[in-house]
């Protein structure tokens, strides 16, 4: 076991909307709170900020709901904000509580933070599906293009195609267009995002959808449903994509193909919660409305592991508003539990609970409206890479299946997809789907790669190592 310097009442992992809200609530109630994030600035993926060196006078121009971010950021109270901290493991500490092991700084040094309670708010990353050419430079995730823009003020490309499924494609396309990219098309494999009756129960969301529609029109960006990018082409770098008209199961129609010239493809098929830490801590993992693994929590955001809470996308993909609300609820529960009083006794609890149910119902409806359909497998060719890290093509996955590998784990052991650098974070879900399984929870004992030297140094550290 390792020694650590300061004991906090609460360590929050992840400084997105959920983590910011939780840390603020707990710190303002007088708890000693550490807020850790791998990034250089708070905000997470949704409220990703450009570096101070840009001196942006209108930082909200790239964000929906920027005022909320400012409130969360300015409400952190005495929270110790530990940026550039990548948490790679959490273990129970001697004498109770937790030891949160991090690598800190751009060039990575080991550090450990001790805390009595934990909130895991590690968010989500883009879900991507393999297709021919998806590893050509110029093909990026939709979230990656957005991160490049929000976090670095770099436009991903000049001529950009946006494709995949889900409402997230809209803000990606409109912000790229507003920042000067020529967005030549948005291709939604499912149905176009419309003002479905469900959306009308959230007037704010209806207005948001209308706003994106207007922006797409202003930038003359075509938005088409029932279309998917089924191949990317280029000699060393992306130069064009094939867009197919697809049926309800996402199988391409004969002859409905068009070739579109572009230097960048921003692609995303929804999001996958980052569950490495909750899985490590032994928290029970269930599934969200789309069947994707998510941490199971009670109505106070407590996981099944004592002292461990989860909020935001960790508990199922639901967007920034729901995440911030869940963070607030979790923060209040941590305060109540620390004081040994019932969490439900807080005067705001009933109102918050009702609001959370409304937001969660909307999120579930969206997840059910934009599922991944099985027809994506018809886009694959034998030489299409499934695993980018280990360069495992579809043909080898099929061979493994032919040899009798009936589940994702056996396919992994025979053909090695998911055994490289990213440890299956990118291809894991695709491999599970190819095995005919629902995607399972992660089993990664280490959440970030750690150098052996850093591990060895952990036992020899002195306190001035952190200087």
């Amino acid at each position, binding site marked *: 076991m390792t020694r650590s310097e300061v004991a906090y009442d609460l360590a929050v992992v992840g400084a997105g909307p959920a983590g910011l809200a939780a840390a603020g609530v707990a710190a303002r109630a007088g708890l000693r709170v550490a807020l850790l994030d791998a990034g250089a600035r708070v905000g997470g*993926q949704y409220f990703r900020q450009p570096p101070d*060196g840009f001196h942006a*006078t*209108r*930082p909200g121009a790239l964000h929906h709901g920027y005022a909320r971010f400012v409130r969360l950021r300015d409400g952190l109270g005495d929270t110790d904000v530990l940026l550039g901290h990548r948490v790679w493991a959490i273990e129970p500490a001697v004498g109770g509580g937790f030891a949160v092991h991090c690598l800190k700084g*751009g060039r990575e040094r080991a550090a450990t933070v001790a805390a009595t309670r934990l909130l895991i708010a590690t968010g989500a990353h883009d879900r991507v599906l393999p297709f021919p050419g998806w590893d050509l430079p110029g093909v990026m995730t939709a979230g*990656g293009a957005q991160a490049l823009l929000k976090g*670095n003020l770099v436009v991903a490309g000049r001529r950009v195609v946006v494709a995949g499924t889900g409402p997230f494609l809209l803000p990606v396309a409109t912000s790229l267009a507003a920042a000067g990219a020529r967005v030549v098309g948005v291709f939604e494999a499912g149905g176009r995002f419309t003002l479905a009756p469900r959306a009308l129960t959230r007037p704010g969301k209806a207005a948001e959808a209308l706003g994106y529609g207007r922006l797409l029109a202003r930038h003359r960006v075509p938005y088409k449903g029932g279309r998917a990018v089924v191949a990317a082409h280029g000699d060393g770098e992306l130069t064009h994509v094939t867009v197919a008209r697809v049926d309800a199961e996402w199988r391409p129609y004969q002859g409905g193909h068009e070739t579109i010239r572009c230097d960048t493809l921003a692609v995303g098929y929804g999001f996958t919660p980052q569950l490495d830490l909750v899985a490590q801590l032994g928290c029970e993992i269930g599934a969200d409305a789309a069947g994707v693994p998510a941490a199971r929590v009670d109505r106070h955001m407590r996981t099944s592991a004592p002292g461990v809470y989860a909020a935001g996308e960790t508990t199922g993909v639901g967007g920034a508003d729901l995440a911030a609300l869940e963070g607030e609820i979790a923060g209040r529960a941590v305060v109540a539990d620390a004081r040994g009083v019932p969490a439900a006794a807080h005067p705001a609890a009933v109102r918050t609970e009702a609001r959370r149910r409304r937001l969660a119902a909307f999120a579930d409806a969206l997840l059910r409206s934009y599922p991944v359909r099985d027809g994506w497998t018809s886009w694959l060719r034998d030489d299409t890479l499934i695993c980018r*890290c280990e360069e495992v093509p579809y043909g080898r996955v099929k061979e493994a299946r032919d040899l009798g590998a009936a589940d994702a784990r056996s396919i992994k052991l025979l053909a090695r997809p998911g055994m490289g*650098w990213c440890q299956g974070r990118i291809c894991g879900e695709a491999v599970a789907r190819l095995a005919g399984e629902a995607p399972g929870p992660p089993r990664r004992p280490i959440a970030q790669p750690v150098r052996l030297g850093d591990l060895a140094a952990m036992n020899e550290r002195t306190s001035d190592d952190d200087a």
Partner: protein
Amino acid sequence: MTGASPYRLVGARPEPGFEIRVDGRPVPVVPGQTVGAALHAAGIRTWRTTRFDGRRRGLFCGIGVCFDCLVTVNGEENLRACLTEARPGDEVTTS
């Protein structure tokens, strides 16, 4: 082109930048940008090749998940370019 740019959009007044070198070639950086962002902005979309098929790789997930953008900076290997903040004088080597 409309003349739109991310700087104009957010009203940025960037501080004087600095340079890093990529295989000896200078690449401009605004303070705080990542190595990956600086390279991508300079039109360098790929900086490593895979070990089996020699496929070219650059930014993909952009948020530290996929490890496609691994880069060598000042001799230190396997850093994620999308997470590594560029510093004045950094020497980036591609493969």
